[in-house]
């Protein structure tokens, strides 16, 4: 069965410290992988997507994600959190035989001064 799991519903960090948001997927095939972010009262914005050109993907606002096929993971990282990073982050998976994207449950990132 195809699924995606975000391991943390909430993550709290101090400004300037690293961020790690975890995502694992389950699929028989190589999926499409995305991270979307949702700020309050805003739409879902694409942070980055895995394109198979490289396992380390760089996105907007200093975020990166590393695709690890052996671990079926696509964790999102940022070296130094900023207050403006506080938002809900969704790991999203697409599969070759469907239009349907499957969303993780989301991780709410809080950044403290």
């Amino acid at each position, binding site marked *: 069965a195809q699924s995606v799991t975000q391991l943390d519903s909430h993550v709290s960090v101090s400004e300037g410290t690293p961020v790690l948001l975890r995502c694992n997927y389950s699929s028989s095939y190589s999926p499409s992988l995305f991270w979307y972010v949702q700020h309050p009262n805003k*739409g879902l914005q694409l942070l980055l997507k895995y394109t198979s050109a490289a396992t380390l993907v760089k996105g907007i606002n200093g975020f990166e994600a590393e695709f690890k096929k052996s671990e079926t993971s696509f964790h999102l990282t940022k070296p130094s959190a900023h207050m403006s990073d506080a938002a809900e982050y969704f790991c999203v998976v*697409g599969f070759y035989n469907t239009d349907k*994207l499957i969303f993780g449950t989301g991780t709410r990132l809080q950044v403290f001064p």
Partner: protein
Amino acid sequence: EPEVTQTPSHQVTQMGQEVILRCVPISNHLYFYWYRQILGQKVEFLVSFYNNEISEKSEIFDDQFSVERPDGSNFTLKIRSTKLEDSAMYFCASSPRPAIIRNEKLFFGSGTQLSVL
């Protein structure tokens, strides 16, 4: 960057009433989608739409739901007789190519919060 716009941002309706949620996709996009998120639950796929036809729909998208592109710019989701469990945030999305293409990016609107009383 171009945006998908959704109106209204909040909609309150009585159970059994019909509601229409409106979306204006990005102008050169050809593929359109509705997703919803019930409070505390995952964002779920409802339907995809292309060339004035439903391409794919989920088991949630039953006969109470319909979609339409009434003119060249709007994309609507109609719920004929709303139920309490239809209360959710509804997201519209669009893309230039179908989501089934590997790594195709969807552009999402900011959502319409539907409350059924």
